[in-house]
């Protein structure tokens, strides 16, 4: 998650203090992982240095919590560029599960059992997320659905792999 760009976007509605930004960010995007204050001020000073935000009046007394930040036009352009660019799809080519399956087959251990255990664990988490989704608001639903679709993809891979274990054994242990 690009915290910097998210800050810039949030600042488009008007200048804010650091703590206000953190709170808004946490409410909207932080869900499982709220920001640390250190992270907030490090991000803001980087944005300041890059000319993407500017100080919008400093109250007397000094200290980072007194500063109000406003987005610059370069900042707005930066958000626009970020929103318009594709994220790199994460292909997960170095998958721990894959390593486990191959190692199990290689060492003559029951790989099917490993896949069963993993399926149960995935489904357990999917039930939890489904519950959260049913009781949550729309934002919560979208976040949970994103996680659910990814877990489902893992599970489809598990099923496919389970169906190909015999073939895999021939390749891994000719």
């Amino acid at each position, binding site marked *: 998650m690009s915290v910097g760009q998210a800050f810039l976007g949030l600042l488009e509605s008007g200048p804010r203090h650091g703590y206000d930004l953190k709170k808004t960010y946490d409410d909207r995007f932080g869900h499982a992982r709220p920001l640390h204050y250190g992270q907030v001020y490090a991000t803001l000073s980087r944005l300041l240095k890059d000319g993407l935000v500017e100080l919008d009046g400093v109250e007397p007394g000094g200290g980072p919590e007194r500063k109000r930040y406003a987005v610059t036009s370069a900042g707005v352009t930066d958000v626009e560029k970020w929103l318009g660019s594709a994220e790199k799809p994460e292909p997960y080519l170095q998958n721990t599960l894959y390593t486990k399956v191959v190692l199990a087959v290689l060492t003559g251990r029951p790989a099917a059992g490993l896949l*069963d255990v993993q*399926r*149960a664990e995935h489904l357990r988490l*999917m*039930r939890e997320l489904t519950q959260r989704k*049913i009781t949550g608001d729309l934002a919560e639903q979208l976040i949970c659905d994103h996680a659910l679709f990814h*877990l*489902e993809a893992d599970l489809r891979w598990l099923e496919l792999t389970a*169906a190909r274990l015999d073939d895999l054994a021939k390749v891994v242990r000719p």
Partner: protein
Amino acid sequence: MTAPHTPAGGTPLLVGEGLCKAFGPTAALDGASVAIRAGEVVAIMGPSGSGKSTLLHCLAGITRPDSGRVLYQGQEVSAMSDSERSALRRTRFGFVFQFGQLVPELTCLENVALPLRLERVRRREAERRAAEWLERLEVTDVAGKRPGEISGGQGQRVAVARALVTGPQVVFADEPTGALDSLNGERVMRLLTQAARETRAAVALVTHEARVAGYSDREVVVRDGRTRHMEHTR
């Protein structure tokens, strides 16, 4: 034969023990066992052709297993007479399938009222209760339409209403969201499981979709006609 899997806490309502069923040379079930408690939503998962539908049909008394037993409230279903078995299906069980289950000549309201009419409930009363269920399933607006005039998602919700209208103890659902897109599938699952939980009906749900199984309390995996049990219970 595998020992029947009895989940901790509570006597099971419906039990299948060591179920075997062959179609000619094909062993569709080869010693499958399941136990379902009252009010529990159990997902029956597994690859295509593994025997999920056959298992569901055996549990529901639609298919007679070659060997093994099905017990409903401790009573052996395969030992019942045909009329006892069909009475059990009519009064205690509800069914939702993938598609094509509504009577095309009847309106949706009449479709939902049908199981009650078969139980000799008067038309006015049956349609009143049917209308209530259509409302719960959020499809009141299709009450007067025929199945050919509504969408697949609406049809599945009507089918769920029909399955629940008699207040069944067990709802058997075979890929109830199979023909729907994600959003409609989710909606059917949410409404089905919500309604089942409120009425304390157990649900035996066949699905190969993990997101659909996310609405269950527990899964039973069928592979080559045999069941594997995972012990995760919510």
